[in-house]
């Protein structure tokens, strides 16, 4: 608990909300319509919303990753990803790119990305350095693809990683658990939303805002 509280100190930790967008989460989004089971993603969102509310009350910063695809970054290797099934996901200007149920406040940066990791050729690291972030609190979808890619990359850029297991979701339980195993053994800490909220409640002097 002491270690977790230190890691998620509101002045040093930033929550990264990864790709909580219609095309990844909703049954009538692009992946859902292509047959991916989106139930776990939709089920996770209320827990995520509760975590974000608690974070805002402590003054912990939140940064949103939003995948947007367009021709300019659709290289040949990229277009063929996911067994050629991802061609119409998160196209610029569509309903599919919009956030699902949760949304950034005006003062919460949105980082547009076009690869799995939120760090590849984006402004994310500049935003995090501006915030003097030391710990990334990872949430979003899908656990083993964009969240894990971003977490691995963030760890390799020397951020502490706290992976919130019940604020992530994948398209199968095995993939979800596999990602948690990697995170736990090689990349940082795995904890539940309640563990974080309890740690803040025990250590943060007074709620902000």
């Amino acid at each position, binding site marked *: 608990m002491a270690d977790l509280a230190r890691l998620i100190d509101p002045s040093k930790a930033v929550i990264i909300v990864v790709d909580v967008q219609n095309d990844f989460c909703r049954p009538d989004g692009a992946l859902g319509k292509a047959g991916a089971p989106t139930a776990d993603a939709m089920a996770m969102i209320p827990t995520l919303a509760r975590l974000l509310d608690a974070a805002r009350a402590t003054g912990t910063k939140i940064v949103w990753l939003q995948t947007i695809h367009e*021709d*300019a*970054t*659709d*290289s040949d290797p*990229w277009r063929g990803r996911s067994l050629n099934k991802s061609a119409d996901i998160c196209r610029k200007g569509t309903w599919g790119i919009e956030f699902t149920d949760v949304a950034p406040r005006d003062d919460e*940066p949105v980082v547009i990305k*076009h*690869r799995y990791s939120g760090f*590849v*050729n*984006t*402004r*994310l*690291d*500049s*935003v995090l*350095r*501006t915030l003097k972030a030391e710990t990334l609190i990872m949430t979003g979808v899908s656990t083993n693809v964009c969240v894990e890619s971003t977490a691995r990359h963030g760890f390799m850029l020397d951020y502490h990683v706290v992976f919130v297991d019940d604020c992530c979701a994948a398209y199968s339980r095995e993939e979800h658990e596999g990602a948690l195993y990697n995170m736990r053994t090689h990349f940082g800490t795995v904890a539940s939303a309640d563990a974080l909220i309890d740690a803040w409640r025990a250590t943060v002097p007074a709620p902000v805002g």
Partner: protein
Amino acid sequence: MLSLSELVVPSKSAIIVVDVQNDFCEPDGAAGKGGKDTAAAMAMIPRLQRFLDAARAHGTNIIFVQTIHEPATDSDVWVGRRANPEARNCLKGTWGAEFTGVTPQAHEPVVIKHRYSAFVNTRLDSVLRTLKVENLIVLGVATNVCVESTSRHGYMLDYNVVLVPDCCAAYDQAAHDMTVLVHKKYFGTVASSEAVIASWAATHAVASGV
């Protein structure tokens, strides 16, 4: 060692137009109002326009780099880069951030940046790989700051880099000249806009069987 015509061949090259924006070029933009001599920048623009027209006629890729600053990326270290931290430029949504004398066509990507090098935490490298670009033709302002930072970084990412000095401008001639010298020694090739245009015309003539 590649010849100039190989280095600028349209199918494998991209022109990187760096920061040709009001706050860096116009006398009443931020740099000008802050005391910088913007004469060289304004004088360069007609040569740049002519160069881009020729590039479009020969099918060379053009990518516009646009500096836009906002609080999300204004770290303490970054804001402290100038003696007067209050002097802001290229703020999101302002006239100062708009392009000067050049306009991207609909299919020409615009890469937003917030540090000197257009490769730092931007989508530039993804855009270049999508285009299968091997060579960068770098120009714009300021020669020794954002142009040089971008050309050095591009070279270190394994692109061939051609610097076009007569389509670059700095606020100090000596600084401009030093960038050209250093680039030629350690980072790639220097060529005039006329030489590049002539190379395109000659390649085109050959291809057309002229």
